[in-house]
Structures are given as C-alpha cells and as structure tokens.
C-alpha cells in the first residue's frame, strides 16, 4: 500500500497533464461559407468546454469543446439569421467536438473524435498543429465538412444555393 501511495504521489508531483484555460480574447472558431457570388467568414469567440493537455505526451491530451451556433458572426445579421434558420439553433444550439483519442503520424498529430452538429454525430479525424510558447499553447486546425452530411438545407441567394462544403478553422490559445 505504501509503495502504491509513493508511486501515485510521485506521479502526481511529476504529472504534466494540465487543464488549459482558454484565452477567449485570442481564440476563435470560424467557418468559411461560399456562394458563386461571394464568400464570407463567420467567427465565434465563445469557445467553451475543457482542454486537458499532457505536455510530455500530447497524445494523452483530451478536448471537449463547444460553441453556441448563435455566437457565429459574419458581420451580416441577415446572413447569420439565415444560417441559424437552416441549422435550427432552436433545436440544436451548439456545435461541439469531443475527442476520443489523439494519434501521431509522421510528425502530424490527429485528433479523433465526434463532431456534433445539427443533431448529427460524425466521427472525424482532424489534423492539428500545436506550439508551446512559455505558458501558452496554441492549437490550430482547418478542415472541411459537407452541410449535406449533417442534413442541413443550404440557404440560397437569388435562387442559387451556397456551396455544400464549408471550411472550419479552429485557433485555440490556452494558458497552461
């Protein structure tokens, strides 16, 4: 028993697994929408959830983050309202990502997990980059999803629908 306590105590002292406090000033999640006539970007800085980072072995880190879909701002309230209509935020108020594992292949980290959007869960493998600078960790990623995969009816402008694929960018600055 004493040995076990000693092991656990040492593990506790030297464990490098830390909860990361998300810097909401610098962090954001965005989507790039495309229409034949113009493109736009909607940004949310209301990232919530948890991010536990293992400094020694980043593959042991976990993320469980979400953002209210209402918080995405494209600087055009009419477009934001149209997006909210098709996303049906009154039923599905958040978009979230929960990691199940992190893998490393050829110097590239991948977060595997579930993206929950418009009431539909999809397994994703997302490439991520991260840098540690003093007490800051910066994680960024960019990946595409298809609106049709999440059963979202695309809004249209002058009868032409927006493109099915949107690019999601994620830039997270955390204090460790």
């Amino acid at each position, binding site marked *: 028993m004493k040995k076990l306590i000693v092991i656990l105590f040492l593990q*506790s002292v030297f464990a490098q697994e830390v*909860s990361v406090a998300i810097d909401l000033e610098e962090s954001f999640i965005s989507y790039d929408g495309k229409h034949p006539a113009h493109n736009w970007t909607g940004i949310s800085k209301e990232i919530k959830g*948890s991010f536990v980072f293992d400094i020694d072995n980043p593959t042991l880190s976990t993320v469980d983050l*979400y953002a209210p879909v*209402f918080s995405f701002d494209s600087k*055009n309230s009419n477009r*934001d*309202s149209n997006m909210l*209509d098709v996303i049906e935020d009154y039923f599905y108020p958040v978009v979230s990502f929960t990691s199940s594992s992190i893998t490393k292949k050829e110097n590239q980290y991948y977060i595997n997990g579930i993206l929950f959007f418009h009431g539909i869960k999809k397994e994703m493998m997302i490439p991520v980059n991260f840098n540690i600078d003093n007490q800051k960790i910066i994680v960024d990623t960019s990946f595409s999803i298809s609106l049709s995969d999440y059963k979202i009816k695309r809004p249209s402008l*002058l009868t032409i629908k927006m493109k099915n694929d949107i690019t999601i960018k994620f830039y997270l600055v955390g204090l460790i």
Partner: protein
Amino acid sequence: MSFRRNLIILSIFLLFSSIKAQSVVTQESYDNRFTPQEIGLPDNMPYVKSIIWGKEGVFRKLDIGPETRIEELKLRRKMLKHHQWIGILTLAGLAYQYDVGKKLYDGNDSDYWDKHYDRHKAMGYFTYATYMTGASLSIFAPPARKYDNNFSSIKFHRTMAILHFSAMMAQPFLAKAAVKDGKKYNDLMDAHLKAGTVAFFALSLDALGITFFK
C-alpha cells in the same frame, strides 16, 4: 490503523488528482449545453418590424401570426424565399417597362404606340402588383434571429428599398394623373419616366448589391 491512515491519504490524493484534471467548465454547463434555450425577439429590431412584430406590436395585439417563435422563423424563411423569386420577376418586368416606356415617351412612331401602349399599361399593373407583393412579404415577415448595425449588403438593401419603394409608389399615380390632366401631361409623364428610371436602376443596383456585397 495504518491501513486506514493510508486509505485516507490515498483518498486525499485521488481527490487532488481529480481536481487537477478537472475541466475548466462546470459540470452544470456541460450538461446543459445541448438543451435548447427559449428563443425570444431579437435586439435592435428595425422600427417598422417592431411596430408590427414587437412585444406590443400590431400583430401581437390582433393575435395574427404563428403561436410560437419557432413557427414564426419558419414562416419568415418561406416568406423571404418568395420575396426573392418575386423580386427577380419584378426586376425583369421593370426592365421591360423601362425600355418600352422610354420608347413610348421619346418616340413619334404611332405604330409603336398602338402596339405597345396597352401592353405597357397592363405590365404596369403587373409590375406594381408583383413589387408590392414582394415588398409586403419582406415588411410583414416575422423578425429575424439577429439584427446589427454593421454596414452590409442587407443594410444596403434596406437603404435602396426606400428609394425604389418611393418611386414605385408614385408610378401609377403619375401616369393616371397625366392621362387625366391634359395641361400637365408632359410634366407628369416626365415625372413618370423619371420615377420609373429611379425604380428600375435602384432595384437593379439593389439586386447587384445583395448578390455581390458581403
């Protein structure tokens, strides 16, 4: 005794570890994140919209409209889809009207007049009806989820709408007055042409703006 003490130490340690690994979000907010919140009316509603759909709006007092805010948003979406289609139809009609109207006003060709005058008049009623139907679909649509004060394509659309709406309102009255009042015929027809020009170009610019501006 020793075992008990060790157990207490182990418990304290486990508690410490659990606190250390705890997420930055509280359990309560974690559990509630997927729970839809009740949707109310937006802030910064345009004045006209608040008169119709505000808490004390006319439609609320007359008990007109859907029972829930979600149904209101679905109705709004349908109305604005039709608003777009009717807008395109109206613009096509106004392009024809502008072209024919200008030729009728400028030309001295009596054959052209005989062939096109009645058509121009009928198309005038048609474009007026489609324009007002389209405008009504927008004006009377329930409020959106969000309103802001940014300068965007929708702000441009609303600004241009004041211009082409005013011109369209004046159009049939100017034409009728011209036909009735022979003395002022030329002046009134001149005003009718100018109003038609403003309506057509303002609506065209509006369509371009809403399509290509962000």
